[in-house]
């Protein structure tokens, strides 16, 4: 049994009277990749921010092991172009030596961008540099917010491969947000399907069979999924019979 790094118990969060997350209970374990999937506006990023401690829950608790070191890869880093900063310098902001930065860039496969100005990196290079920054502090928990965004198909496969390798070399737990389901499915241990509440969760092959998952993502399990229900503007599921199905792990009414 793998050690639990972070444990959320009945966590809820409301922004401007809109319930973004309701009654979320989940665990992140050492050595496991947990993937959050769900439609836009489902609360994935908010859940990530709760786990990172950037926001606090309204109700519920988040327990973390005492020696938790978190590595974070944000969706995007927008540095004002008036700020001159090299890639190496960007990495060194994580309080690491020049050599460690070099090694991290080597690990993600782009040692050549070391002296490239940060804002001249290509989309794929940028994602790898952000991944490199996230591993610099030797984290036991990696939090990756859409790690392959803006990367072409082959690059996505490579990045997921890299993330899988990092999991074993760092022996860390990984939480990542993803949109592209079918690539993720092969690279993950645990999938949580989120739409303000946890619709369903489990091993990828279980989740893809779950009616709640199919309700949201359709049977092709591909990003261009066929919806068998509509969402209201608020993101609520409007099923034909006015309700939506609940998965096994679902705790709301």
């Amino acid at each position, binding site marked *: 049994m793998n050690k639990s790094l972070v444990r959320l118990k009945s966590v809820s969060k409301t922004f401007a009277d809109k319930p973004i997350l309701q009654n979320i209970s989940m665990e992140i374990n050492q050595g496991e990749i947990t993937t959050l999937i769900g439609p836009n506006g489902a609360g994935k990023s908010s859940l990530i921010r709760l786990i990172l401690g950037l926001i606090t829950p309204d109700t519920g608790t988040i327990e973390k092991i005492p020696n938790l070191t978190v590595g974070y890869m944000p969706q995007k880093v927008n540095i004002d172009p008036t700020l001159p900063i090299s890639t190496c310098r960007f990495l060194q*902001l994580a309080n690491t030596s020049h050599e460690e930065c070099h090694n991290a860039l080597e690990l993600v496969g782009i040692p050549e961008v070391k002296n490239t100005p940060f804002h001249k990196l290509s989309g794929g290079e940028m994602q790898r540099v952000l991944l490199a920054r996230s591993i610099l502090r030797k984290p036991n928990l990696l939090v990756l917010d859409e790690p392959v965004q803006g990367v072409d198909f082959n690059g996505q496969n490579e990045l997921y491969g890299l993330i899988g390798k990092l999991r074993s070399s760092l022996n860390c737990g990984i939480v990542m947000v993803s949109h592209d389901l079918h690539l993720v499915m092969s690279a993950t241990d645990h999938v949580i399907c989120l739409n303000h509440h946890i619709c369903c969760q489990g091993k990828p092959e279980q989740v893809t069979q779950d009616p709640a998952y199919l309700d949201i993502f359709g049977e092709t399990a591909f990003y261009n999924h066929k919806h068998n229900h509509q969402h209201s503007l608020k993101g609520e599921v409007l099923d034909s019979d006015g309700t939506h199905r609940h998965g096994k792990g679902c705790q709301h009414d």
Partner: protein
Amino acid sequence: MALIAMGKGANMIDFLIYALLAGLGVAAVAGPLGCFVVWRRMAYFGDTLAHSALLGVALGVLLNIDLGIAVTVVCLLMALGLVALEQQGVLALDTLLGILSHSALAAGLVVISLLSDIRVDLMSLLFGDLLSVTASDLWVIYTGAAVAIILLATLWKPLISITVEHDLAAVEGINVARTRTALMLITALVIAVAMKIVGVLLITALLIIPAAAARRVCATPESMALIASLTAMASVISGLAASWYIDTPAGPSIVISAALLFCFSLGFKQKA
């Protein structure tokens, strides 16, 4: 103007040296601080703080307290108020700043106009009065500038970190709110001190233009801060020289010098 009237005697050399030293002191700290104003797009923040300095003068005269203290306190309070409002997120930030900035400026002008028995030189408040700097002003300017430079140097790394990506900085253990508040307070302090040099309407220019000029020729944040300081110092020297030889107002001449240096910098191919 005043220069000619008093004649260019030995006393004038003293005046000029005081003015030069005061200008150079402010220019030194305007470099690194101006870089943050540019990187973090805080120009409007700077304007708002500068305009509130005028309100500080008015209140200082009204309550009969030292003007330097009144201006500094009002600027610092305004900075704290802005930090609090920024976190509220009630209105778009630029709208909010626009309201505060111009209200503070207008309130300052109205209060000053009501003080009919005391003569306040509005032009020198708005555009600076570098040539009237006294030895005691120099002390205030150098103390303020030294405090600001020491704080900037101490907080340099976390400041760069939160400017690059504040969430990453927070996850890596930097207290983002405290660092940001510190930067606002440093900005307020420098503006309070710089008011004497270029006046409330031109302070932001002294922060932004040298930093923007430095950007073209620099590849690291540190070199940009240094070159911005040197550019600001060169602007002070040439602005004062213009004031001395062709009798132009010192504050605006400094800003024009900085603007010319910026135009000159456009000739360089951007590094990095």
